[in-house]
Protein backbone atom coordinates (compact mmCIF):
# COMPACT_ATOMS: atom_id res chain seq x y z
CA UNK A 1 0.00 0.00 0.00
CA UNK A 2 1.59 3.25 -1.12
CA UNK A 3 -0.54 5.38 1.20
CA UNK A 4 -2.96 4.59 3.96
CA UNK A 5 -6.55 3.67 3.29
CA UNK A 6 -9.01 5.09 5.79
CA UNK A 7 -10.22 2.67 8.45
CA UNK A 8 -13.78 1.62 7.75
CA UNK A 9 -15.19 3.59 10.68
CA UNK A 10 -13.43 6.72 9.45
CA UNK A 11 -14.84 6.05 5.99
CA UNK A 12 -18.37 5.84 7.38
CA UNK A 13 -17.83 8.96 9.50
CA UNK A 14 -17.76 11.01 6.27
CA UNK A 15 -21.45 10.24 5.71
CA UNK A 16 -24.37 12.01 7.39
CA UNK A 17 -27.18 9.98 8.95
CA UNK A 18 -30.36 11.05 10.71
CA UNK A 19 -30.91 7.79 12.53
CA UNK A 20 -34.55 6.85 13.04
CA UNK A 21 -35.79 5.01 16.11
CA UNK A 22 -37.38 2.32 13.97
CA UNK A 23 -35.05 -0.30 12.48
CA UNK A 24 -36.07 -0.12 8.83
CA UNK A 25 -34.30 -3.40 8.08
CA UNK A 26 -34.37 -6.43 10.34
CA UNK A 27 -32.48 -9.68 9.98
CA UNK A 28 -33.59 -13.09 11.19
CA UNK A 29 -30.29 -14.54 12.41
CA UNK A 30 -31.90 -17.99 12.69
CA UNK A 31 -32.41 -18.08 8.92
CA UNK A 32 -28.87 -16.73 8.40
CA UNK A 33 -27.39 -19.67 10.31
CA UNK A 34 -28.25 -21.98 7.43
CA UNK A 35 -26.85 -19.58 4.78
CA UNK A 36 -23.82 -20.88 2.89
CA UNK A 37 -23.11 -17.83 0.72
CA UNK A 38 -23.33 -14.82 3.09
CA UNK A 39 -23.30 -12.50 0.07
CA UNK A 40 -24.48 -9.62 2.26
CA UNK A 41 -21.27 -9.71 4.33
CA UNK A 42 -19.22 -8.88 1.21
CA UNK A 43 -21.67 -6.84 -0.83
CA UNK A 44 -23.13 -4.39 1.71
CA UNK A 45 -21.12 -1.24 0.96
CA UNK A 46 -21.65 0.04 4.51
CA UNK A 47 -20.43 -3.26 6.03
CA UNK A 48 -23.51 -3.61 8.20
CA UNK A 49 -23.61 -7.43 8.21
CA UNK A 50 -21.17 -9.05 10.59
CA UNK A 51 -20.90 -12.84 11.00
CA UNK A 52 -21.13 -14.00 14.61
CA UNK A 53 -19.17 -16.86 16.12
CA UNK A 54 -22.30 -19.03 16.37
CA UNK A 55 -22.91 -18.83 12.60
CA UNK A 56 -25.52 -16.11 12.66
CA UNK A 57 -25.40 -12.58 11.29
CA UNK A 58 -25.31 -9.42 13.35
CA UNK A 59 -26.90 -6.43 11.63
CA UNK A 60 -27.23 -2.77 12.51
CA UNK A 61 -29.40 -0.42 10.52
CA UNK A 62 -28.04 2.92 11.75
CA UNK A 63 -25.49 3.59 9.00
CA UNK A 64 -27.44 2.13 6.09
CA UNK A 65 -27.09 3.65 2.61
CA UNK A 66 -30.57 2.31 1.73
CA UNK A 67 -29.14 1.02 -1.54
CA UNK A 68 -31.02 -2.29 -1.51
CA UNK A 69 -27.98 -4.45 -2.24
CA UNK A 70 -28.64 -6.76 0.73
CA UNK A 71 -32.15 -7.67 -0.27
CA UNK A 72 -31.03 -8.11 -3.89
CA UNK A 73 -28.26 -10.57 -2.99
CA UNK A 74 -29.89 -12.34 -0.03
CA UNK A 75 -30.63 -15.94 -0.84
CA UNK A 76 -32.23 -16.71 2.52
CA UNK A 77 -35.98 -17.00 2.42
CA UNK A 78 -37.34 -14.32 4.68
CA UNK A 79 -34.00 -13.59 6.35
CA UNK A 80 -34.34 -9.89 5.60
CA UNK A 81 -37.28 -7.63 6.21
CA UNK A 82 -36.52 -4.55 4.14
CA UNK A 83 -38.10 -1.11 3.99
CA UNK A 84 -36.96 2.46 3.48
CA UNK A 85 -36.59 4.51 6.66
CA UNK A 86 -39.42 6.90 7.43
CA UNK A 87 -39.45 10.26 5.65
CA UNK A 88 -36.44 12.48 6.33
CA UNK A 89 -34.51 9.82 8.23
CA UNK A 90 -31.57 7.69 7.19
CA UNK A 91 -28.66 8.59 4.97
CA UNK A 92 -28.22 12.11 3.56
CA UNK A 93 -25.43 12.36 1.01
CA UNK A 94 -23.89 15.83 0.74
CA UNK A 95 -22.00 15.19 -2.51
CA UNK A 96 -23.62 12.14 -4.07
Amino acid at each position, binding site marked *: MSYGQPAFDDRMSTVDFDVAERAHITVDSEVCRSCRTTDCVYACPAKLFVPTSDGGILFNYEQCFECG*TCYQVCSGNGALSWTYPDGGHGVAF*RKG
Partner: protein
Amino acid sequence: MAEHAGPGTRSAVITAPPQREVDVVVVGAGPAGSAAALEVARAGHSVVLLERGPYPGAKNVYGGVVYGRVLDELVPRWWEQMPVQRWVTRRSTMIMTPTQALTVDFRTQAWGGPPYNGATAHRSDLDGWLAGLAEKEGAVVVPSTVATGLLRSAEGAVVGVRTDRPDGDLTAKVVIACDGVNSFLAKEAGMFAGKPAGHVTLGVKETLRLPREVVDERFGVTGRDGVDIEILGCTGGIPGGGFLYTNLDSVSVGVVVDPHGLAARKIRPEELVAELKRHPAVEPLVRGGELLEYSAHLIPEGGYDTMPDLVGDGFLVAGDAAAMCLAAGIWLEGVNFAIGAGMYAGRAAVDAIRAKDTSKAGLASYRRMLDESFVLGDHRKLRRVPGLVLGQRVQQDYPALLCDLAQGLFHVDNPRPKPGLFKLMRRVMKWHGIKARDLLSDALTGVRSFG
Protein backbone atom coordinates in the same frame (compact mmCIF):
# COMPACT_ATOMS: atom_id res chain seq x y z
CA MET B 1 -52.28 -0.85 4.89
CA ALA B 2 -48.71 -0.14 3.90
CA GLU B 3 -46.86 1.73 6.62
CA HIS B 4 -43.41 1.64 5.08
CA ALA B 5 -42.05 1.48 1.55
CA GLY B 6 -40.40 -1.80 0.70
CA PRO B 7 -40.70 -4.92 -1.40
CA GLY B 8 -44.05 -6.60 -1.14
CA THR B 9 -46.11 -3.53 -0.27
CA ARG B 10 -49.73 -3.81 -1.26
CA SER B 11 -51.98 -1.17 -2.72
CA ALA B 12 -54.88 0.28 -0.77
CA VAL B 13 -58.18 0.25 -2.62
CA ILE B 14 -60.30 3.38 -2.46
CA THR B 15 -63.97 2.54 -2.83
CA ALA B 16 -65.43 6.05 -2.70
CA PRO B 17 -64.68 8.14 -5.79
CA PRO B 18 -61.25 9.71 -5.28
CA GLN B 19 -61.26 13.36 -4.37
CA ARG B 20 -58.58 14.19 -6.94
CA GLU B 21 -56.75 16.52 -4.63
CA VAL B 22 -54.11 17.26 -7.23
CA ASP B 23 -53.70 16.61 -10.91
CA VAL B 24 -50.37 14.80 -10.68
CA VAL B 25 -48.27 13.26 -7.91
CA VAL B 26 -44.63 12.66 -8.77
CA VAL B 27 -42.72 10.35 -6.43
CA GLY B 28 -39.01 11.08 -6.13
CA ALA B 29 -37.30 14.45 -6.63
CA GLY B 30 -34.40 13.13 -8.69
CA PRO B 31 -33.78 14.33 -12.25
CA ALA B 32 -36.71 12.31 -13.67
CA GLY B 33 -39.18 13.45 -11.02
CA SER B 34 -38.20 17.12 -11.13
CA ALA B 35 -38.35 17.19 -14.94
CA ALA B 36 -41.82 15.61 -14.83
CA ALA B 37 -43.05 18.03 -12.16
CA LEU B 38 -41.57 20.98 -14.07
CA GLU B 39 -43.48 20.10 -17.24
CA VAL B 40 -46.78 19.55 -15.41
CA ALA B 41 -46.46 22.79 -13.43
CA ARG B 42 -45.48 24.72 -16.52
CA ALA B 43 -48.68 23.56 -18.23
CA GLY B 44 -50.64 25.10 -15.35
CA HIS B 45 -51.68 21.89 -13.60
CA SER B 46 -51.32 21.16 -9.92
CA VAL B 47 -48.46 18.82 -9.05
CA VAL B 48 -46.94 17.53 -5.82
CA LEU B 49 -43.35 16.27 -5.89
CA LEU B 50 -42.65 13.86 -3.02
CA GLU B 51 -39.09 13.24 -1.83
CA ARG B 52 -38.20 10.80 0.93
CA GLY B 53 -34.90 12.52 1.75
CA PRO B 54 -34.68 15.74 3.74
CA TYR B 55 -33.67 17.50 0.49
CA PRO B 56 -33.58 16.50 -3.18
CA GLY B 57 -30.44 14.47 -3.88
CA ALA B 58 -30.00 13.29 -0.29
CA LYS B 59 -30.51 9.67 -1.28
CA ASN B 60 -28.83 9.86 -4.67
CA VAL B 61 -25.38 8.92 -5.91
CA TYR B 62 -23.91 8.69 -9.40
CA GLY B 63 -20.56 8.43 -11.13
CA GLY B 64 -20.36 12.13 -11.56
CA VAL B 65 -21.07 13.29 -15.11
CA VAL B 66 -24.30 14.75 -16.39
CA TYR B 67 -24.83 15.18 -20.13
CA GLY B 68 -26.92 18.25 -20.63
CA ARG B 69 -28.08 18.16 -24.24
CA VAL B 70 -31.60 17.02 -23.29
CA LEU B 71 -31.87 20.13 -21.11
CA ASP B 72 -31.93 22.31 -24.25
CA GLU B 73 -35.56 21.27 -24.58
CA LEU B 74 -36.41 21.77 -20.91
CA VAL B 75 -34.41 24.76 -19.66
CA PRO B 76 -33.25 27.34 -22.22
CA ARG B 77 -29.61 28.37 -21.66
CA TRP B 78 -29.39 25.88 -18.80
CA TRP B 79 -25.60 26.15 -18.73
CA GLU B 80 -25.84 29.67 -17.34
CA GLN B 81 -27.59 28.44 -14.21
CA MET B 82 -26.80 24.74 -13.65
CA PRO B 83 -24.59 24.16 -10.56
CA VAL B 84 -21.57 22.73 -12.38
CA GLN B 85 -18.23 21.68 -10.95
CA ARG B 86 -16.32 21.35 -14.24
CA TRP B 87 -17.17 21.06 -17.93
CA VAL B 88 -15.83 17.82 -19.40
CA THR B 89 -13.43 18.69 -22.22
CA ARG B 90 -11.42 15.50 -21.97
CA ARG B 91 -12.74 11.94 -22.00
CA SER B 92 -10.56 8.88 -21.57
CA THR B 93 -11.16 5.17 -21.69
CA MET B 94 -8.53 3.30 -19.71
CA ILE B 95 -8.10 -0.43 -20.20
CA MET B 96 -6.02 -1.99 -17.48
CA THR B 97 -4.47 -5.09 -16.02
CA PRO B 98 -2.88 -4.99 -12.55
CA THR B 99 0.39 -3.67 -14.00
CA GLN B 100 -0.58 -2.14 -17.36
CA ALA B 101 -2.88 0.58 -18.66
CA LEU B 102 -3.81 1.45 -22.23
CA THR B 103 -5.65 4.76 -22.49
CA VAL B 104 -7.57 6.25 -25.37
CA ASP B 105 -7.59 9.93 -24.56
CA PHE B 106 -9.69 12.53 -26.32
CA ARG B 107 -10.00 16.23 -25.70
CA THR B 108 -11.90 18.96 -27.45
CA GLN B 109 -12.32 22.59 -26.55
CA ALA B 110 -15.68 22.47 -28.36
CA TRP B 111 -17.11 21.02 -25.14
CA GLY B 112 -15.63 23.83 -23.06
CA GLY B 113 -18.05 26.51 -24.26
CA PRO B 114 -21.79 26.94 -24.94
CA PRO B 115 -23.81 24.83 -25.55
CA TYR B 116 -21.41 22.44 -23.73
CA ASN B 117 -21.63 18.66 -23.57
CA GLY B 118 -20.95 16.97 -20.25
CA ALA B 119 -20.37 18.40 -16.80
CA THR B 120 -19.42 17.11 -13.40
CA ALA B 121 -21.77 18.15 -10.63
CA HIS B 122 -22.65 17.01 -7.13
CA ARG B 123 -26.05 15.38 -6.99
CA SER B 124 -27.19 17.41 -3.97
CA ASP B 125 -26.52 20.58 -6.02
CA LEU B 126 -27.89 19.29 -9.32
CA ASP B 127 -31.04 17.67 -7.92
CA GLY B 128 -31.73 20.68 -5.71
CA TRP B 129 -31.44 22.98 -8.73
CA LEU B 130 -33.82 20.89 -10.86
CA ALA B 131 -36.38 20.58 -8.06
CA GLY B 132 -36.09 24.33 -7.53
CA LEU B 133 -36.98 24.93 -11.19
CA ALA B 134 -40.14 22.85 -10.77
CA GLU B 135 -40.97 24.71 -7.57
CA LYS B 136 -40.60 28.10 -9.31
CA GLU B 137 -43.16 26.97 -11.87
CA GLY B 138 -45.61 26.10 -9.10
CA ALA B 139 -44.87 22.49 -8.20
CA VAL B 140 -45.21 21.76 -4.49
CA VAL B 141 -42.08 19.97 -3.29
CA VAL B 142 -42.68 17.87 -0.16
CA PRO B 143 -39.43 16.48 1.27
CA SER B 144 -38.98 14.01 4.16
CA THR B 145 -41.99 12.05 2.94
CA VAL B 146 -42.10 8.44 1.81
CA ALA B 147 -44.73 7.18 -0.63
CA THR B 148 -45.49 3.90 1.12
CA GLY B 149 -47.88 2.48 -1.45
CA LEU B 150 -50.37 3.12 -4.23
CA LEU B 151 -54.02 4.00 -3.94
CA ARG B 152 -56.20 2.23 -6.48
CA SER B 153 -59.76 2.40 -7.65
CA ALA B 154 -61.96 -0.71 -7.43
CA GLU B 155 -61.12 -1.26 -11.10
CA GLY B 156 -57.39 -1.26 -10.33
CA ALA B 157 -56.43 2.11 -11.78
CA VAL B 158 -53.86 4.06 -9.80
CA VAL B 159 -55.55 7.07 -8.20
CA GLY B 160 -52.90 8.31 -5.81
CA VAL B 161 -50.34 7.39 -3.21
CA ARG B 162 -50.29 6.71 0.51
CA THR B 163 -47.54 8.55 2.39
CA ASP B 164 -46.04 8.19 5.85
CA ARG B 165 -47.38 11.55 6.93
CA PRO B 166 -50.43 11.73 9.21
CA ASP B 167 -53.54 11.75 6.96
CA GLY B 168 -51.07 11.08 4.22
CA ASP B 169 -53.29 9.87 1.40
CA LEU B 170 -52.83 11.97 -1.71
CA THR B 171 -55.15 11.37 -4.63
CA ALA B 172 -54.30 12.37 -8.18
CA LYS B 173 -55.32 11.85 -11.77
CA VAL B 174 -51.83 10.57 -12.64
CA VAL B 175 -49.02 9.18 -10.48
CA ILE B 176 -45.53 9.34 -11.98
CA ALA B 177 -43.14 6.92 -10.26
CA CYS B 178 -39.59 8.25 -10.29
CA ASP B 179 -38.75 6.42 -7.08
CA GLY B 180 -35.38 5.11 -8.15
CA VAL B 181 -33.65 1.83 -8.85
CA ASN B 182 -35.58 -0.20 -6.28
CA SER B 183 -38.93 1.27 -7.46
CA PHE B 184 -41.30 -0.40 -5.07
CA LEU B 185 -44.16 1.51 -6.66
CA ALA B 186 -43.50 0.11 -10.15
CA LYS B 187 -43.21 -3.36 -8.64
CA GLU B 188 -46.40 -2.86 -6.67
CA ALA B 189 -48.18 -1.74 -9.83
CA GLY B 190 -47.13 -4.99 -11.52
CA MET B 191 -45.03 -3.27 -14.16
CA PHE B 192 -42.21 -5.80 -13.86
CA ALA B 193 -44.46 -8.84 -14.39
CA GLY B 194 -42.65 -11.37 -16.56
CA LYS B 195 -39.38 -9.41 -16.56
CA PRO B 196 -36.07 -10.91 -15.43
CA ALA B 197 -35.41 -9.54 -11.94
CA GLY B 198 -32.32 -8.20 -10.30
CA HIS B 199 -30.23 -6.69 -13.10
CA VAL B 200 -28.44 -4.27 -10.85
CA THR B 201 -24.84 -3.38 -10.25
CA LEU B 202 -23.41 -1.77 -7.15
CA GLY B 203 -21.60 1.54 -7.53
CA VAL B 204 -19.20 2.52 -4.75
CA LYS B 205 -17.53 5.91 -4.77
CA GLU B 206 -15.06 8.06 -2.87
CA THR B 207 -15.01 11.81 -3.21
CA LEU B 208 -11.44 12.95 -2.48
CA ARG B 209 -10.50 16.53 -1.74
CA LEU B 210 -7.56 17.87 -3.73
CA PRO B 211 -6.65 21.54 -4.15
CA ARG B 212 -8.01 23.00 -7.37
CA GLU B 213 -4.53 23.72 -8.78
CA VAL B 214 -3.47 20.13 -8.04
CA VAL B 215 -6.47 18.78 -9.97
CA ASP B 216 -5.65 21.18 -12.84
CA GLU B 217 -2.05 20.08 -12.95
CA ARG B 218 -2.54 16.33 -12.59
CA PHE B 219 -5.35 16.13 -15.14
CA GLY B 220 -3.93 18.66 -17.55
CA VAL B 221 -6.79 21.14 -17.49
CA THR B 222 -7.37 24.78 -16.55
CA GLY B 223 -10.30 27.00 -15.62
CA ARG B 224 -13.54 25.04 -15.42
CA ASP B 225 -12.38 22.32 -17.81
CA GLY B 226 -12.61 18.77 -16.48
CA VAL B 227 -11.86 15.14 -17.20
CA ASP B 228 -13.90 11.95 -17.20
CA ILE B 229 -12.06 8.62 -17.21
CA GLU B 230 -13.90 5.29 -17.64
CA ILE B 231 -11.90 2.22 -16.68
CA LEU B 232 -12.18 -1.40 -17.74
CA GLY B 233 -10.31 -4.28 -16.12
CA CYS B 234 -10.03 -2.81 -12.62
CA THR B 235 -12.55 -5.00 -10.78
CA GLY B 236 -10.53 -8.11 -10.06
CA GLY B 237 -12.45 -10.29 -12.47
CA ILE B 238 -15.85 -9.26 -11.12
CA PRO B 239 -18.08 -7.98 -13.92
CA GLY B 240 -18.03 -4.17 -13.81
CA GLY B 241 -15.76 -1.21 -14.33
CA GLY B 242 -14.33 1.89 -12.72
CA PHE B 243 -14.41 5.64 -13.07
CA LEU B 244 -12.44 8.74 -12.15
CA TYR B 245 -13.93 12.22 -12.59
CA THR B 246 -12.68 15.68 -11.72
CA ASN B 247 -14.71 18.10 -9.65
CA LEU B 248 -13.57 21.66 -8.95
CA ASP B 249 -11.44 20.88 -5.91
CA SER B 250 -12.00 17.17 -5.54
CA VAL B 251 -12.09 13.99 -7.61
CA SER B 252 -14.62 11.14 -7.63
CA VAL B 253 -13.19 7.66 -7.94
CA GLY B 254 -14.99 4.36 -7.71
CA VAL B 255 -16.07 1.05 -9.13
CA VAL B 256 -19.31 -0.44 -10.39
CA VAL B 257 -19.59 -4.20 -9.87
CA ASP B 258 -21.98 -7.11 -9.94
CA PRO B 259 -22.86 -7.49 -6.24
CA HIS B 260 -23.00 -11.30 -6.47
CA GLY B 261 -19.42 -11.32 -7.77
CA LEU B 262 -18.11 -9.77 -4.54
CA ALA B 263 -19.09 -12.76 -2.43
CA ALA B 264 -17.84 -15.18 -5.07
CA ARG B 265 -14.43 -13.48 -4.90
CA LYS B 266 -14.69 -12.88 -1.14
CA ILE B 267 -13.76 -9.26 -1.58
CA ARG B 268 -15.51 -6.09 -0.47
CA PRO B 269 -16.28 -3.15 -2.77
CA GLU B 270 -14.17 -0.57 -0.90
CA GLU B 271 -11.18 -2.93 -1.27
CA LEU B 272 -11.64 -2.79 -5.05
CA VAL B 273 -11.66 1.01 -4.87
CA ALA B 274 -8.49 0.90 -2.77
CA GLU B 275 -6.86 -1.39 -5.34
CA LEU B 276 -7.87 0.95 -8.14
CA LYS B 277 -6.40 3.90 -6.24
CA ARG B 278 -3.15 1.99 -5.85
CA HIS B 279 -2.86 1.18 -9.56
CA PRO B 280 0.29 2.79 -11.01
CA ALA B 281 -1.82 4.63 -13.61
CA VAL B 282 -4.27 6.02 -11.04
CA GLU B 283 -2.21 6.54 -7.89
CA PRO B 284 -0.37 9.63 -9.18
CA LEU B 285 -3.76 11.22 -9.96
CA VAL B 286 -5.45 10.64 -6.59
CA ARG B 287 -2.56 10.51 -4.11
CA GLY B 288 -2.98 12.57 -0.97
CA GLY B 289 -6.69 13.12 -1.59
CA GLU B 290 -8.59 13.49 1.67
CA LEU B 291 -11.81 11.46 1.83
CA LEU B 292 -14.75 13.87 1.81
CA GLU B 293 -17.53 11.34 1.37
CA TYR B 294 -17.91 7.62 0.87
CA SER B 295 -21.09 6.64 -0.93
CA ALA B 296 -22.81 3.80 -2.72
CA HIS B 297 -25.91 3.12 -4.77
CA LEU B 298 -27.44 0.46 -6.97
CA ILE B 299 -27.53 1.01 -10.73
CA PRO B 300 -30.07 -0.59 -13.07
CA GLU B 301 -27.65 -1.73 -15.77
CA GLY B 302 -29.68 -4.46 -17.44
CA GLY B 303 -30.78 -2.20 -20.29
CA TYR B 304 -33.77 -2.34 -22.61
CA ASP B 305 -34.70 -5.98 -22.07
CA THR B 306 -35.05 -5.51 -18.31
CA MET B 307 -37.24 -2.41 -18.42
CA PRO B 308 -40.67 -2.60 -16.82
CA ASP B 309 -43.91 -1.66 -18.56
CA LEU B 310 -43.86 2.13 -18.60
CA VAL B 311 -47.57 2.98 -18.75
CA GLY B 312 -50.48 1.79 -16.63
CA ASP B 313 -53.93 3.15 -15.79
CA GLY B 314 -53.16 6.48 -14.10
CA PHE B 315 -49.51 5.49 -13.75
CA LEU B 316 -46.19 6.22 -15.47
CA VAL B 317 -42.64 5.07 -14.65
CA ALA B 318 -39.48 7.07 -15.46
CA GLY B 319 -35.75 7.22 -14.74
CA ASP B 320 -33.90 4.59 -12.70
CA ALA B 321 -37.31 3.21 -11.67
CA ALA B 322 -37.68 2.22 -15.34
CA ALA B 323 -34.07 0.91 -15.61
CA MET B 324 -33.10 3.79 -17.91
CA CYS B 325 -29.39 3.75 -17.11
CA LEU B 326 -27.23 3.18 -20.17
CA ALA B 327 -24.18 1.07 -19.36
CA ALA B 328 -22.70 0.42 -22.77
CA GLY B 329 -18.93 0.47 -22.64
CA ILE B 330 -17.87 3.92 -23.77
CA TRP B 331 -21.29 5.31 -22.84
CA LEU B 332 -22.23 5.46 -19.17
CA GLU B 333 -25.23 7.71 -18.84
CA GLY B 334 -28.31 7.98 -16.70
CA VAL B 335 -29.23 11.47 -15.63
CA ASN B 336 -29.89 12.55 -19.23
CA PHE B 337 -32.20 9.56 -19.77
CA ALA B 338 -33.96 10.34 -16.51
CA ILE B 339 -34.48 13.99 -17.47
CA GLY B 340 -35.76 13.01 -20.93
CA ALA B 341 -38.13 10.37 -19.61
CA GLY B 342 -39.40 12.62 -16.81
CA MET B 343 -40.03 15.45 -19.27
CA TYR B 344 -42.06 13.18 -21.60
CA ALA B 345 -43.92 11.63 -18.67
CA GLY B 346 -44.93 15.11 -17.52
CA ARG B 347 -46.09 16.03 -21.02
CA ALA B 348 -48.03 12.78 -21.42
CA ALA B 349 -49.76 13.37 -18.09
CA VAL B 350 -50.73 16.89 -19.18
CA ASP B 351 -52.08 15.62 -22.52
CA ALA B 352 -54.10 12.89 -20.82
CA ILE B 353 -55.56 15.27 -18.22
CA ARG B 354 -56.58 17.73 -20.93
CA ALA B 355 -58.20 14.92 -22.96
CA LYS B 356 -59.89 13.71 -19.73
CA ASP B 357 -58.54 10.21 -20.23
CA THR B 358 -55.80 9.15 -17.81
CA SER B 359 -56.22 5.45 -18.53
CA LYS B 360 -53.38 3.43 -20.01
CA ALA B 361 -54.67 4.31 -23.49
CA GLY B 362 -54.94 7.99 -22.60
CA LEU B 363 -51.36 8.04 -21.34
CA ALA B 364 -49.94 6.11 -24.31
CA SER B 365 -48.27 9.19 -25.78
CA TYR B 366 -45.52 8.72 -23.13
CA ARG B 367 -44.35 5.52 -24.77
CA ARG B 368 -44.59 7.14 -28.23
CA MET B 369 -42.48 10.13 -27.18
CA LEU B 370 -39.88 7.84 -25.60
CA ASP B 371 -39.77 5.63 -28.70
CA GLU B 372 -39.16 8.61 -30.95
CA SER B 373 -36.45 10.08 -28.71
CA PHE B 374 -32.97 9.00 -27.66
CA VAL B 375 -34.39 7.58 -24.43
CA LEU B 376 -35.67 4.33 -25.93
CA GLY B 377 -33.86 4.81 -29.25
CA ASP B 378 -30.44 4.41 -27.64
CA HIS B 379 -31.60 1.71 -25.27
CA ARG B 380 -33.18 -0.37 -28.05
CA LYS B 381 -30.11 -0.01 -30.25
CA LEU B 382 -27.74 -1.02 -27.46
CA ARG B 383 -29.89 -3.76 -25.91
CA ARG B 384 -27.26 -6.48 -26.51
CA VAL B 385 -24.38 -4.43 -25.11
CA PRO B 386 -24.85 -5.01 -21.36
CA GLY B 387 -24.44 -8.78 -21.95
CA LEU B 388 -21.37 -8.20 -24.10
CA VAL B 389 -19.72 -5.68 -21.81
CA LEU B 390 -20.33 -7.67 -18.62
CA GLY B 391 -19.13 -10.95 -20.16
CA GLN B 392 -15.86 -12.65 -19.16
CA ARG B 393 -14.01 -11.86 -22.40
CA VAL B 394 -14.65 -8.11 -22.42
CA GLN B 395 -14.08 -7.98 -18.67
CA GLN B 396 -10.78 -9.83 -18.44
CA ASP B 397 -9.46 -11.37 -21.63
CA TYR B 398 -9.63 -8.35 -23.93
CA PRO B 399 -8.11 -5.82 -21.51
CA ALA B 400 -5.12 -8.17 -21.07
CA LEU B 401 -4.97 -8.80 -24.83
CA LEU B 402 -5.03 -5.10 -25.70
CA CYS B 403 -2.46 -4.18 -23.05
CA ASP B 404 -0.10 -6.92 -24.20
CA LEU B 405 -0.64 -5.96 -27.83
CA ALA B 406 0.25 -2.35 -27.02
CA GLN B 407 3.24 -3.50 -25.01
CA GLY B 408 4.38 -5.65 -27.95
CA LEU B 409 4.00 -2.77 -30.38
CA PHE B 410 5.82 -0.23 -28.24
CA HIS B 411 8.48 -2.56 -26.88
CA VAL B 412 11.86 -2.16 -28.54
CA ASP B 413 13.53 -5.52 -28.84
CA ASN B 414 16.46 -5.06 -31.25
CA PRO B 415 18.69 -6.51 -32.46
CA ARG B 416 15.61 -8.71 -33.21
CA PRO B 417 13.51 -7.28 -36.06
CA LYS B 418 10.12 -5.82 -35.15
CA PRO B 419 7.19 -8.25 -35.31
CA GLY B 420 4.29 -7.43 -37.64
CA LEU B 421 0.94 -6.48 -36.11
CA PHE B 422 -0.84 -9.68 -37.18
CA LYS B 423 1.94 -11.91 -35.92
CA LEU B 424 1.84 -10.03 -32.63
CA MET B 425 -1.94 -10.34 -32.49
CA ARG B 426 -1.80 -14.10 -33.10
CA ARG B 427 0.86 -14.48 -30.43
CA VAL B 428 -1.03 -12.46 -27.82
CA MET B 429 -4.30 -14.26 -28.57
CA LYS B 430 -2.55 -17.56 -28.03
CA TRP B 431 -1.11 -16.37 -24.67
CA HIS B 432 -4.56 -15.47 -23.43
CA GLY B 433 -6.32 -18.48 -24.94
CA ILE B 434 -8.64 -16.32 -27.02
CA LYS B 435 -10.27 -18.06 -29.95
CA ALA B 436 -10.55 -16.19 -33.23
CA ARG B 437 -14.19 -17.16 -33.60
CA ASP B 438 -15.10 -15.70 -30.18
CA LEU B 439 -13.28 -12.48 -30.99
CA LEU B 440 -15.08 -12.29 -34.32
CA SER B 441 -18.47 -13.00 -32.80
CA ASP B 442 -17.94 -10.33 -30.10
CA ALA B 443 -16.69 -7.88 -32.71
CA LEU B 444 -19.80 -8.55 -34.77
CA THR B 445 -22.10 -8.00 -31.76
CA GLY B 446 -20.18 -4.79 -31.13
CA VAL B 447 -20.42 -3.59 -34.70
CA ARG B 448 -24.13 -4.42 -34.87
CA SER B 449 -24.78 -2.48 -31.67
CA PHE B 450 -22.42 0.45 -31.99
CA GLY B 451 -22.27 0.64 -35.79
